[in-house]
């Protein structure tokens, strides 16, 4: 049976852990709010981009010939999968879900899979497993910028157009709600057919002039489209990470509370037992006289 002092020590340890997890939860909650704002802030840009692009695609029939839309130059080349994990742990099954999904993707893809690793956790996992790594980037989620997405897009486009990769997808945690994150795979290259967005009333008048010519604008715009897709994946992943951490830390705080209650009860029992024993000793000592 553990002594009183041991129990007190354990209670103190659990208490300080509880304080830490509680603080982490609060921090995650405020970071989550900021991450959500950024997702909302990025939406108009992506929507407008999508609209202009599908408009252009419909207008310029030559668009299909663009290398980013065309089927891969080398169909046998490995498939490039970007995996967006977190830089830090302590966020429940956030990273392990992703890594499991990435590993099973590699098995079911039916062809070789190369990886682009974003985030420290995924990098650390796959680097040790001798995976073909084409891109890596860590320590970005503290200060997430559009230029991170640009770097990813640059590699993706370069690999695809040079024939080193037969396709590019990005695997990340999508932010569904605070309690729910979902691992999703988005195809990036070749760019999936740009479905026409439901046309607004103004489309009637939209018989544009172009400066420079339409074809050139279109091919200038496509790489930016790839960037916005990566950027969206990064933002979603950041929000999902904070949500996952918030939930995990909330659970941890609750567990710590329960543990403290249990330990306190146990400690009181031990103390009471000791007092009773001492009393018996005193009484029986007195009787012996």
């Amino acid at each position, binding site marked *: 049976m553990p002594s009183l002092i041991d129990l007190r020590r354990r209670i103190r340890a659990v208490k300080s852990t509880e304080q830490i997890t509680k603080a982490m939860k609060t921090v995650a909650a405020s970071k989550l709010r900021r991450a959500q704002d950024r997702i909302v802030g990025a939406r108009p*840009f992506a929507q407008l981009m999508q609209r202009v692009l599908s408009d252009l695609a419909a207008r310029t029939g030559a668009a299909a010939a663009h290398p980013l839309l065309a089927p891969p130059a080398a169909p046998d080349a490995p498939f490039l999968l970007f995996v967006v994990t977190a830089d830090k742990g302590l966020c429940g099954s956030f990273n392990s879900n992703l890594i499991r999904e990435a590993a099973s993707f590699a098995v079911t893809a039916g062809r070789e899979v190369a990886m682009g690793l974003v985030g420290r956790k995924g990098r650390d996992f796959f680097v040790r497993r001798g995976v073909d790594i084409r891109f890596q980037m860590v320590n970005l989620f503290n200060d997430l910028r*559009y230029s991170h997405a640009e770097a990813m897009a640059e590699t993706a486009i370069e690999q695809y157009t040079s024939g080193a990769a037969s396709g590019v997808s990005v695997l990340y945690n999508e932010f569904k709600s605070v309690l729910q994150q979902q691992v999703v795979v988005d195809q990036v290259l070749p760019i999936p057919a740009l479905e026409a967005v439901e046309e607004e009333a*103004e489309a009637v*008048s939209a018989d544009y002039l172009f400066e420079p010519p339409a074809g050139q604008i279109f091919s200038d715009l496509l790489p930016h489209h790839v960037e916005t897709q990566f950027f969206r994946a990064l933002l979603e992943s950041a929000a999902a990470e904070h949500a996952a951490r918030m939930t995990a830390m909330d659970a941890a705080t609750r567990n710590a509370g329960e543990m403290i209650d249990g330990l306190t009860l146990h400690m009181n029992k031990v103390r009471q037992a000791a007092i009773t024993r001492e009393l018996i000793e005193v009484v029986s000592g007195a009787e012996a006289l």
Partner: protein
Amino acid sequence: MSLPSHLTIEIVTPDRAIVHETVDEARLPGAEGYLGVLPGHTPLLVKLQVGEIWFRRGNETTWLHAAFGFAEILPDRIRILARTAERADEIDLERAEAAATRARERLASTTSDVDFERARIALLKSLSRLQVARRIGMRSAGKR
């Protein structure tokens, strides 16, 4: 056909929507030169280069620095997708000046390991920022 009397201007970057206003007139840094836009402009899709965006509502004018992007112009609205855009009062003068100096030094260097294209773009950006920032300086000086 009656012409619209105002333009709605929207400027969005990947990070946020910066401007959503009704204006009388605007000027954009098109890839092939600045272009002025009045209500009733013919539909136009134009690539933007580094430069200043200017728009006016009544007597109130606003300047912004913008770098790379596209603008969709319709008779009654302008939509601008920019890689970066900053309002004049958001520009950090000292930083822009330091960037300009740095870019000039790099352009002037004779070693071959310099990425001249990048330096040139950096210089363009910082000069545009400075120009925009000085505009509001001038305006407030004029008021006094």
